[in-house]
């Protein structure tokens, strides 16, 4: 839009210059001077109006709501859309915690709303809650640690949903936190307990399983 204004301005400027030149070339004399003096205030008022239009468009670009035209310092909002159609408005800084979204914004693909097809609204709510806290309380290490501990007090299904979401959205710290939670849960379990926990079928023959146990018998105590 700005380029268009500048283009028009330049065009009109050149046009005026050309007119001046042609006037100059055509005839010198009183009528020439008269026309030139008329042109002068005309061009001034023209440029002034251009300036006003420019400023108006500049302020309206900064925010989408009419009320925000007054202040141009409110944060930029990004709209995210979950797989089940719900929309979430988040600050750009919060959305940028996701490297996937960050790249989309930088590549200018994030015009109206960003669809997140693999993540449901429940999971997206939780993800946004996490990112918001980590942006707000960035320097408060202790506070973040206790927030993370509380945040991970969720059921299995939600945890795995969060892992999938943070993997897709490329939020390293959330993926790390989720994976560490799972790792801590399963560290001391034996194979049978693991199979029960995750619903995994044992596809080893008794001989095959025995061979693996024989390789490192001390870990199976």
């Amino acid at each position, binding site marked *: 839009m700005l380029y268009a204004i500048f283009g028009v301005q330049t065009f009109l400027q050149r046009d005026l210059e050309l007119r001046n030149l042609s006037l100059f070339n055509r005839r010198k004399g009183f009528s020439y001077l008269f026309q030139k003096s008329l042109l002068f205030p005309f061009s001034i008022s023209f440029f002034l109006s251009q300036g006003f239009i420019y400023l108006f468009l500049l302020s309206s670009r900064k925010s989408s709501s009419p009320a925000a035209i007054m202040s141009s310092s409110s944060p930029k909002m990004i709209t995210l859309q979950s797989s089940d159609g719900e929309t979430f408005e988040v600050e750009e800084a919060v959305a940028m915690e996701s490297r996937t979204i960050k790249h989309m914004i930088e590549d200018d693909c994030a015009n109206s709303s960003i669809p997140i097809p693999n993540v449901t609204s429940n999971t997206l709510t939780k993800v946004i809650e996490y990112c918001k806290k980590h942006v707000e309380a960035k320097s408060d290490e202790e506070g973040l640690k206790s927030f993370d501990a509380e945040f991970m007090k969720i059921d299995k299904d939600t945890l*795995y*949903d969060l892992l*999938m979401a943070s993997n897709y959205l490329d939020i390293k710290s959330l993926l790390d936190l989720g994976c560490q939670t799972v790792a801590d849960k399963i560290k001391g379990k034996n194979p049978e307990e693991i199979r029960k926990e995750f619903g*995994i079928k044992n596809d080893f023959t008794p001989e095959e399983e025995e061979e*693996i146990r024989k390789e*490192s018998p001390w870990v199976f105590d």
Partner: protein
Amino acid sequence: MNEGTTFLELPADVVMHIFSKLPVKSLLRFKAVCKYWCSLIQSPTFVAKHLRHHKNQENLLVHCYHVHGGASALSLFPDAYLAGTSLEYQDHIPTPTSFSTVSTVLGPVDGLVFIYNDHSLMLLWNPATREVKLLPPLVVSSLPLSSPSRTLYSHVFGFGKDPSTNDFKVVCVRDYWDDDLQVWYVPLVSVYTLSSHSWRQFRDYTFSSLRVVKSYTNTYLNGFYYWGGISSCRVFAFDVRNEIFREIRTPDTFKSMQGNLALYNDSLATFAYNRGTETSVDVWVMEAEGCWIKKVSIGPLLNIRRALGSWKTGFIFIETGNMQLALLNPDTKEIRHLGPRINCYCLQVSRYKESLVRLH
């Protein structure tokens, strides 16, 4: 409707991310869960990922000699113990049956350790998986001993990895002295490669003799194995990939120093100690090949026999006057004894990280 994801639907890289935070003991157990988990845990991609992971803390492997019982043993001091946040450490870790008092430990490289007693008993060992691989015996070549006046002067080992193929190699350098001719015979070099499980023997003509000394700690770094020379101002490097030797330039000041090579914050360094009425420890770091800079100088200190290496926080391992292992804080000059303080003499220390690297 929110259909929860089950664990089985998680993609392989998320599962590997979870696994990389687990200790080797748990992972060995989980190999028995199902075929998919077994192949995932054994895959070279995962083994490398697990080794690199920041949660995989470095521990200190200490080879010490115990007076009671007259045997040497390996102890493992975890990161928390060295940081002072925990008092727990493993005093005697299970070692291969042939491990004895005369054993020398080289490495670790990627969690693998090379142990040798003499020419005939050499093995590669992964302390975390307890896997052992005996090396075939070195051929005592007839050629250098064809003259009866030639005697084996020294044999020194090196252990490292070819960074381009991730293959592990052991190098043995044997120097021979000819009594009649009063000259050094060209060194005999033997290189063992894990993938081929065999030795390759050749004579190296780069130097008339490679009189190098055994390193007290791991001196393998980024594809090269380093030794200090008999005259402590010389440093030699073995290019593991191309199997050739090089001499590294050292400053003139090294001529009057007494020191040993070790690693300091991912660089090669010489830990020099000047013993006199007062002892001081200087650490010269090789920032680029042949370019040495004195990074640390601590002194005067009392009661130090030698400097053994460094910890990641810049702390220095030292052997005190009564042969005990201690950790020296370069800023406060505080010395903290490590491990059992009674009747236990420290022989070697090395930084060790658990790994799943397989020998077979």
